[in-house]
């Protein structure tokens, strides 16, 4: 299996506060990777570095073998232009904690706008694939609704469909169920489970240990900007080696 994401010593600081202090991580194609850890550990920041929503300060971050946000030439890193980075981002889907659906557009328009404006897909083609995706997340009846008229779980399923509409090769999930009422978490996890089964490469920042245990191929535990432990779910969640991870698991399980 080829490598989808590769991070080597990725660091990042906000001002003088270090958030990532050398993160190493490898994700192969078709794998589901869960990032767990206490809040403020840098999970979300790391995820956002992968599609260059945040710039990392140092270290190497490659998606499909290509450096994110930079071009290596003659031993120097050249920052890429806005346009070039945009092209790369279109191949990476992202799902946010707060859904971030476009409030002024209907559900259907939320799914077609990226295809049409970024990838230049014709409207009828975009609408067709949008309807297929909405059916896949079980919301084909809601295409004329505005996001504010949907429940949190429905909004998050639309957000996943919106990301999928771009036909990404990698999906990033930033705590996709943290803003949901407990009874709505299941429907979103179901969609993510199906997505994983279909062979999508996924990196998921989550507090849902059940999901991680069941779906993930590997789990990384981040604490204070460092990967403390990593391995299969059985190893990391079932047999924690460090005191910190034991502490963390005792709080979230």
């Amino acid at each position: 299996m080829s490598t989808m994401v590769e991070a080597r010593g990725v660091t990042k600081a906000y001002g003088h506060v270090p958030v990532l202090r050398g993160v190493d991580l490898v994700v192969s194609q078709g794998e589901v990777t869960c990032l767990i850890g206490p809040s403020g550990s840098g999970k979300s920041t790391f995820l956002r570095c992968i599609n260059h929503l945040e710039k990392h300060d140092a270290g190497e971050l490659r998606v499909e073998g290509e450096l994110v946000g930079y071009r290596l030439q003659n031993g120097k890193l050249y920052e890429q232009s806005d346009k070039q980075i945009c092209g790369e981002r279109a191949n990476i889907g992202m799902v946010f904690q707060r859904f971030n659906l476009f409030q002024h557009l209907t559900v259907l328009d939320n799914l077609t706008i990226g295809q049409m404006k970024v990838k230049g897909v014709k409207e009828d083609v975009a609408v067709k694939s949008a309807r297929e995706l909405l059916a896949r997340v079980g919301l084909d009846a809601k295409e004329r609704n505005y996001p504010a008229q949907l429940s949190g779980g429905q909004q998050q399923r639309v957000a996943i469909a919106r990301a999928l509409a771009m036909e990404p090769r990698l999906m990033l999930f930033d705590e996709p169920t943290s803003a949901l009422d407990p009874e709505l978490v299941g429907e979103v996890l179901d969609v993510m489970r199906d997505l994983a089964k279909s062979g999508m490469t996924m990196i998921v920042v989550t507090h849902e240990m059940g999901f991680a245990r069941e779906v993930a191929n590997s789990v990384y535990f981040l604490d204070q900007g460092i990967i403390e432990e990593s391995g299969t779910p059985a190893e990391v969640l079932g047999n924690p080696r460090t005191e910190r991870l034991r502490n963390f698991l005792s709080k979230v399980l």
Partner: protein
Amino acid sequence: MSKDQQSEVEVVPVRHVGQWVGAAVVLVAIAMVVHTLFSKVPLQSGLNKCVTTAGKRVCHPILIWRFQWNTVGQYLFSSEVLRGVILTLELTAVAMVIGIVLGVIIAVMRLSSNRLLAAPAWVYTWFFRGTPVYVQLFFWFNIGLLYKRFTLGVPFLHVTFFSTSTNVITGVWAAILGLGLNEAAYMSEIARAGIISVDEGQTEAATSLGMTKGQTLRLVVLPQAMRVIIPPTGNEVISMLKTTSLAASIAVIELFGAVQNIWANNFKTLSLIVVACLWYLFMTTVMSIGQFYIERHFARGALRSPPMTPIQRLRKDLRTLGGRARNTRVTS
């Protein structure tokens, strides 16, 4: 309602004495306003009209409308006034277009992380908000004292594409420039507030889909900012409609200029002021109605159900009234 239901327990609502007193005062005030608007006064003291009927001479003062409604009616639709109304609307439209386009550009500059873009935007707003628009109109009207020619070319090099005398700045052009540039300063603040009001998550989501900064602004941020931008912009349009009257002082024959010209000839000052007021009121009323529907359009998605239009509300009221009437018929 049947008799035994009534006899159960009677509910006595609280009496709002203050409200009744207030309502009475307001009613008297309304009566006074209506009375003075439609009362008649003697044309001139001591000037009487006498009629002799059956050998008896009866004299009474000549009465005219206090507000000279007949003169108002005479000039309300005169061609000079109508031409003024059209010019007022044209000035408002052109100045607002300049104000909105330039205002949005300045707002985006102001929000740029590049200081070289943000600082001039701040200075622009500082200058145009800090000087009276009336004074600015005179500045543009007299720009010829400062520059003899307008030239389009390459700065600091002797390359000229186009050049013309500043005499082309007539009153109308000075008014368009003055009102438009001044409006841009106010519109930029309104647009900036609107852009800031859009959740940052919207920008992140657009970015993660691969949209460029320009696309994000155009397709995602500005349409949502509109909901916040439209109501104060409506106020600005209405305000601009009235502010165009200042242009009368730089030889622009818009509505107020037109009525001034008329009263300079016939001295019917008050009637013509009333003519102008009626037209301004009519135009601002139409604009307020338009504003309601535009606001409703841009609120889509932000509210679960859009506010009812007055027509819808009237229909609903009638329906409930009808429903109540039917119900009483059924029970009685």
